[in-house]
């Protein structure tokens, strides 16, 4: 069948591996691209850019509105869903030869491994990325770079749980006193949770999830949702969820608190990339450049609660400095290899 099947992916990847012999000779990032008046004019002619993303919707729309304010006349359409859905959606649309995405952001860095391997990404390096971004956070071939970084954390509602009784580790969540009181998100929907589940299964063992599944957790989809369920007071504790949503809630005065697990918190990296077949290539380039500008990066910190790799940005006071937190190690290549198994294993344990 001509759908986005594993067979197609395999065939495509062999073809690309074969051509890789030649490609490797020239495999260096293209020169950095500055934002020129010509680019802006061409982008304005296109008038719009389509951004598929898995960032929590209000944050994504904030960034979109900031772009629209900087470049009036270019509308950003945010297409927001879970990273795993974004991946599935693009795969399905491309299999039907529908090219509607310009720029993508995903919380599952493994997706970029696949898109790059299939030759779907445009080689485009914004000036800020070339100048300021650390090597391990940009593709050597110039197809993507880390737009955002954050952690998958534990959290609790402070009116429902006293600070001294709050969990401090993943092991604590298995205590019977939390039965029926935990909310958690789903790896088949959320890239954050997919990545976190991989890291935790690797470091803590599947044994942990097996026990957690017996805690009668409330199963939501997006990693942005557990913080919101804590805010409503629907559950007392979240087993996983976005650190950035917790910052947003906390700074809004919601009674929630973050717990960085003593075992380490899963590190989540969310790259941005431009598609080769983007319907609005110039607006796409402009938007990609804007996303890595100090202005957008600082906004993602201040309004979005995210961490930035741009050295010209400042961390927001009151938040625990990124460097002081114990993190688990990310491994996109391995996530890419094992994601189907991780999801299947998870569904078997949790029933959905």
């Amino acid at each position, binding site marked *: 069948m*001509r759908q986005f*099947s594993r067979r197609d992916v395999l065939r495509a990847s062999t073809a690309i591996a074969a051509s890789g012999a030649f490609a490797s000779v020239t495999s260096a990032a293209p020169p950095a691209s500055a934002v020129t008046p010509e680019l802006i004019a061409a982008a304005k002619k296109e008038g719009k850019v389509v951004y598929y993303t898995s960032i*929590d919707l209000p944050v994504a729309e904030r960034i979109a509105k900031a772009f629209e304010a900087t470049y009036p006349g270019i509308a950003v359409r945010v*297409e927001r869903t879970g990273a795993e859905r974004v991946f599935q959606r693009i795969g399905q649309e491309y299999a039907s030869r529908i090219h509607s995405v310009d720029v993508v952001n995903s919380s599952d860095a493994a997706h970029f491994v696949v898109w790059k391997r299939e030759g779907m990404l445009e080689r485009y390096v914004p000036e800020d990325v070339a100048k300021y971004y650390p090597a391990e956070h940009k593709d050597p071939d110039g197809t993507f770079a880390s737009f955002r970084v954050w952690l998958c954390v534990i959290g609790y509602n402070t009116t429902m749980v006293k600070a001294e009784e709050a969990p401090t580790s993943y092991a604590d969540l298995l205590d019977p006193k939390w039965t029926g009181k935990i909310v958690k998100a789903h790896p088949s929907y959320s890239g954050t949770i997919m990545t976190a589940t991989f890291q935790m299964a690797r470091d803590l063992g599947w044994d942990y999830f097996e026990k957690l599944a017996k805690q*009668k957790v*409330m199963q*939501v*989809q997006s990693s942005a949702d557990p913080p919101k369920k804590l805010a409503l007071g629907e559950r007392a504790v979240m087993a996983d969820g976005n650190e950035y949503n917790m910052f947003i809630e906390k700074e809004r005065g919601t009674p929630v608190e973050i717990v960085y697990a003593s075992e380490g918190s899963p590190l989540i990296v969310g790259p941005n990339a431009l598609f080769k077949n983007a319907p609005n290539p110039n607006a796409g380039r402009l938007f990609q450049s804007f996303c890595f500008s100090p202005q957008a990066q600082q906004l993602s910190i201040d309004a979005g609660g995210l961490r930035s790799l741009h050295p010209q940005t400042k961390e927001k006071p009151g938040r625990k400095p990124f460097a002081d937190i114990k993190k688990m190690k990310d491994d996109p290549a391995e996530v890419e290899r094992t994601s189907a198994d991780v999801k299947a294993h998870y569904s078997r344990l949790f*029933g*959905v």
Partner: protein
Amino acid sequence: MSIALPALGAPRTQRIDLSSPILILFAAFLCVLILLPMSWLIYFSLVDRNGAFTLDNFKTLVTDSAFLDPLTTTLILATSSSIICCAFAAPMGWLVARTDMPLRRTVRALVTASFVTPPFLGAIAWELLAAPNSGLLNKIYRATTGAPPDEHLFNIYSLAGVIFVISAYTFPYVFVLIANALDRIPGDLEDASSILGGGTWTTARRITIPLALPALLAGALVAFLQAMTLFGSPAILAIPAGFHTMTTKIWSLFNYPPKPELAAAASVPLLVLTVALLRAENLILGRRGYSVVGGKQGNPRLVRLGALKWAALAFVFLVLMCPVFLPYGALLNATFSRVATSFVTFDNFTLHNIHFVFFELSATQLAVKNTFLLGVASATIGTIMALVIAYLTTRRAIRGYRALGFLATAPVAIPGIVLGVGLFLSYARPPFVLYGTLWILLLAFVTIALPAAYQQLQSAFRSVHTDLEDASRILGSTRLRTLRDITAPLLRTSVIATWCFIFVGVIRELSAAIMLFTSETKVISVLIFDLNESGDLGAISVLGLIMLVITFAVVIAVNRIPGFGEARLRNA
């Protein structure tokens, strides 16, 4: 299949025979709508990834508990919902049609309002009301009884919760069927019973109830099928509780990595069950048709309830709390509250949600436009198709009209999500790539709407006797002129009702749309479902209310179109 062609009497003179082209055109179109998707569905269920024949998909279906559990759950859910719907809709239908209970018209209007409410929106509203900890009702319960913080009265995230919410939005179907049936039972029969000495209750037991029984049975079946094939409510309420129904399971098979073969196979039991149940209904009702329409009818006699009528009214309003008053109250509250599940007070009143949906959410405009376009287009095309087919079949205007009638009714046996899977498998790949356009959604919506639209208009045509048309023809009018001057005005009300029925159906459709949308062809229902997955309840409330305003505005506007003037809003 073979079709018996009845003799049509003396052939009319000097007429160009348009029957074969019309028949072929419509039959071909209906095949595209129904046969092609279903063929692909069956084909995919019988092949493996490489396209080789296999029964493994079905073997997985009957051996893997990941499929057996949802199937059992679905059957429990459909049976319970069906029983609950009948238990509440039957007495309510009787009260409204047959007693002197006050406010009967208002009650009918409110049931229509609950029909217009999409079930998935109702499910989200019930999350706001009855989530175990944050639900408004549970908060009231704890505040009034002083119960401890983690105790709750309701838990909507449970099998019972799903059954409750599905019943609340399925009972209008049963109610309308029963109320209409009771409306049609002639008073003469009841009078005869009274004259022969039967008291009120004897008459009810011996005459009214038996005559209404076929409608009750039909209602039970409709409720069962609705509950079995609904996608939105279980997706919103069952998955958080950690279980699947068949529809959510089928949908989850399209998560990456997608397994369309298994999804196709898992769709087959739903299809088979639906066909079997409809056959069974035909067998039972086929023999029990009471010819109650015909001859002069006496008005139905109203049972005097006396003082009991206030108790009856209280019961009816208590039932209507569930689909109408409480959910709308919760949505309105969430619209203006900073925290969706806190009661609006002076302190936490906010217009932020409204501002967000109208000025920040970039998907709003496109979704509203798509939904509106699809609603109007599907309703118009669906009504025209149903009108033509109903005319051709009731007037036996062309040969092979029975095949047309059959094809127009067939989609009733195809659950929305199954149709979605079928259309996706048919039109997402060359040679016919409709996926990514509004056309594929239009196909889905017209297909889903056609059976009910056809049946409504067919009965409308039957009620217009051919005498009037014949008189017009005898006086020299052409067939088309007769249609325009005689038949059309007589059918006006039914046509408008059918149009509105399809329009409302499109607005509340989620199960086929969720399989077929792309980012460019998103509709409001899908957008709301998306927002629910990321927990943006404030935005959902605003969008949900916009959706209802659009629906009511369009329905009212269509009923006021000049020339259609005095047509009345009817129960859909």
